């Protein structure tokens, strides 16, 4: 069972109180506390819906409205001269990285069984998340097109 599914079961339990079906007069079964995995699952769904627009929009803009043959340094500099595009790109960067690495965390939890290996893999996923977030954010903020 994948972590996403585990979180989903948790959610279903929280929402519908599966198996609880309290008889009248009986107190409802207490909800289990929302875990990190629950929030992770919820974030995957929420960011996923946003990314349908942000990521597909970015791909269509680059490959249908423009073409990969238009893309070069000058193209990027012109684009990022507009702050709105930097904000768009940064939002896409953050949501896509967090969504992708949250998914990868689920894959690791499901496929990597040996304990020490799993701990190392989890650490690597968190490390990669941090590195790409920091690098990407730095590039979006630090890029300055040369004058002229």
């Amino acid at each position, binding site marked *: *069972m*994948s972590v996403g*599914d585990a979180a*989903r079961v948790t959610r279903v339990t929280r929402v519908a109180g599966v198996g609880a079906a309290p008889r009248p007069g009986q107190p409802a079964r207490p909800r289990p506390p929302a875990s990190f995995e629950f929030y992770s699952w919820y974030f995957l*769904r929420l960011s*996923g*819906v946003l*990314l*349908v627009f942000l*990521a*597909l929009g970015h*791909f269509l803009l680059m*490959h*249908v409205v423009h*073409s*990969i*043959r238009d*893309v*070069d*340094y*000058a193209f*990027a500099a012109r684009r990022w001269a507009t702050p709105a595009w930097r904000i768009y790109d940064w939002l896409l*960067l953050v949501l*896509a*990285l967090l969504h*992708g*690495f949250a*998914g*990868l965390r689920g*894959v690791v939890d*499901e*496929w990597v069984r040996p304990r020490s290996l799993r701990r190392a893999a989890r650490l690597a996923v968190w490390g*990669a998340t941090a590195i*790409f977030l920091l*690098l*990407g954010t730095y*590039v979006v903020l*630090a*890029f300055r097109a*040369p004058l002229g």
Partner: protein
Amino acid sequence: MLVYRDRGGHRAWVLHRLTGLGVLAFLCLHVLDTALLLRGEDAYNHLVRGVYQQWWFQPLEVALGAALVYHALNGLRLVLVDAWAGGVRYERPIRRTMLALVVLAVAPLAAVMLWPYLSAALGGGT
């Protein structure tokens, strides 16, 4: 590993995972190539022209687009099946509709992306 009794549903799940991993791999590459902007015009243009604009990279670009479209539509299908009470009952028609939409979206996308390269190759031009 999870194995569903419904084989179509299982295949959809495997594809969701594979396309997700593929898009994540490209995303990481894309963060690195964009970082070349900080190394200046020559470094960035050298990479874009030497890799992304080459004819042999175009099928990979189309594969990226197809993976994105599939992952997006299948993800929306999961949301629908979970959120809508009738979702489980109409699981199969919803899945088939989703697959049809993927094909309908990817075919013109591939045509638009590959056309300049194909016409150049067939015309023997630049």
